[in-house]
């Protein structure tokens, strides 16, 4: 601050830059820039880039977890095996099923809660805490809580069902057709806070006067929501839906903790199949092929999002 305030920027830079640098272009700082980037870049290469490449390589080999080295070359055999295997398609279907069960309620409920809470003049903070706190809890805590809510015959859900007049309600996690719904319910309770916060943040960007003015003009609350709120939230909705789909495709924790893929294989999901193939059957090559397939699905969805966002920005 002791320096003369009116000092122009360029001379300051030129003074410290070496004569050689000065002659090249507009103050390039290659060396310091890369030194700052280096620590992160090393971790990025070692734990993101290289695993991705290694996963693709091993997917073409008969790699095993119990022997070192890549093993014999397998060509496309691992892919052929996965793509023709019922287990793989059923795991993909269960993953999709979970996505279909969770995404619509997670988006719609979060949307409705956020719109209604945003209209409140008092108590917003309280609702925020109530809906958001489960989101920061570990999946292990969530799963233990819901596992015992779903306890067959004498758990909390069974008790409520008996009060409501159902006799002998079926065990949620023990019935193949219900188990995934049980996992979805726990997940909705767990993660709705994330979408709720995103919607609330978007809503808070809309000036309150807009609504007050619309209300002065005689617009009913429903009209305000229909013609002001919903159009303004369309961008957030796209974002929330895409993030939610990607998160759902990566589901593992709740299934592992609540049903371990059962009963039978009725809740076995993609990541469950991948980890089983690698850590139970020791077949790393086959597991890598399945990983690559899941990887591609997720990357395509993520790339579509990047593209739409970019085109929106330039449009």
């Amino acid at each position, binding site marked *: *601050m002791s*320096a003369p305030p009116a000092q122009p920027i360029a001379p300051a830079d030129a003074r410290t830059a070496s004569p050689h640098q000065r002659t090249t*272009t507009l103050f390039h700082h290659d060396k*310091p820039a*890369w030194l*700052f*980037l280096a620590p*992160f870049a090393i*971790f*990025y290469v070692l734990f*993101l880039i290289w695993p991705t490449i*290694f*996963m693709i390589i091993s997917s073409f080999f008969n790699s095993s977890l119990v022997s070192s080295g890549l093993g014999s070359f397998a060509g496309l055999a691992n892919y052929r095996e996965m793509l023709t295997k019922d287990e793989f398609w059923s795991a993909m279907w269960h993953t999709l099923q979970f996505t279909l069960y969770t995404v619509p309620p997670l988006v719609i*409920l979060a949307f409705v809660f956020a719109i209604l*809470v945003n209209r*409140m003049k008092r108590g917003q903070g309280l*609702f*925020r*805490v109530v*809906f958001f*706190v*489960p989101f*920061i809890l*570990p*999946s*292990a805590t969530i799963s*233990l*809580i819901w*596992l*015992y*809510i779903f306890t067959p015959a004498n758990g*909390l859900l069974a*008790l409520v069902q008996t009060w409501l007049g159902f006799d002998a309600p079926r065990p949620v996690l023990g019935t193949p057709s219900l188990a995934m719904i049980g996992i979805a319910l726990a997940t909705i309770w767990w993660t709705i806070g*994330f979408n709720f*916060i*995103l919607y609330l*943040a978007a809503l808070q960007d809309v000036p309150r*006067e*807009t609504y007050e*003015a619309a209300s*002065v*003009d005689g617009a*009913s*609350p*429903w009209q305000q929501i229909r013609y*002001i709120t919903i159009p303004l939230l369309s961008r957030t909705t796209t*974002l929330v839906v895409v*993030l939610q789909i990607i998160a759902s495709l*990566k589901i*593992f924790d709740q299934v*592992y*903790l609540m049903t371990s893929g059962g009963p039978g294989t009725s809740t076995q999901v993609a*990541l469950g199949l*991948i*980890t089983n193939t*690698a850590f139970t059957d020791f077949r790393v090559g086959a597991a*890598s092929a399945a*990983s690559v397939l899941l990887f591609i699905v997720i*990357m395509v969805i993520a*790339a579509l999002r990047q593209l739409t966002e970019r085109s929106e920005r330039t449009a």
Partner: protein
Amino acid sequence: MASETVDTPRRRTGNGVSGAAPPALTNKPKAKEGSGAFNIIAGVFVGFFALLWLVPSFWAIKTSLTPNPTAALGAEAILRDTNPTLESYMTLFRAGDIWNWYLASAITSVVTVVLTVLFASMAAYPLSRLQFRGRRIVFLLMILGIMVPGQVLIIPIFQQLGAVGLLNTYWAVIFPQVPAVIAVFVFKQFFDGLPKELEEAARIDGAGFWRIYWSIIMPLSKPIVAAMAVLTFVGVWNNLLLPLFVLSNPELMTIPVGLATVQGSYGQRVADIQASAILGCLPLVVLFIFFQRRIIEGVAGTGTKG
């Protein structure tokens, strides 16, 4: 729609928010009546769901405070129990496993937070302030990195850690979680918004880039450092997949991995199981109480980026 939003604010400034101005009165009572009823219905609706949302947490707490034999009888017995006891918590503290889990989770979370925040903010600094060759490629790699689903890489990461002998060490949990690309973007965006005058003055005084980063940029970035630190901490604390497979030594288990074993090993001790679930998330709840705003703003910020 456009005319509605553009038009009305102007009129509002004429009337005043109080609504006392005469022209507003003709419209207002009708609208107000409708929205009054709407607000009540909305309040009841959200209130109902909020209560519903509280049930699982309260149920876990209630169960954990019930004696084990009573809790094993089922929901009705738990509901009827009127002798809350901390016995389950005492049992867990005495048994000691939970202390090991806390230690493992605390060490891995804190070290990952320090490395992630330091390295991500360092990487963000040249991206925000310096011109250098390869900048475009770095950006491209960053955008790619955001899209990569880390969990799907569990198999190669496991093999890689095995190859260098890091399995069953805390490093196996720490290292793979350090390259959080999203953190670089969040830091960069924050740095972009900081005024550049101080740095220019420092440059004139002969300060190097490291001093500018460390003594000017970072002190100005305390809010975002706190937000990123807390969010990273929560993420690492809650991670199940990675420690589940890279740690098989029970001594090193983190909280989620430990909790994954209690269902089998505690059997009918339902109250103990719920107490361990609650103890496992207690540090996060405390963190939330202290950093509520940072966490919520951070989640809203990273969400819109990621």
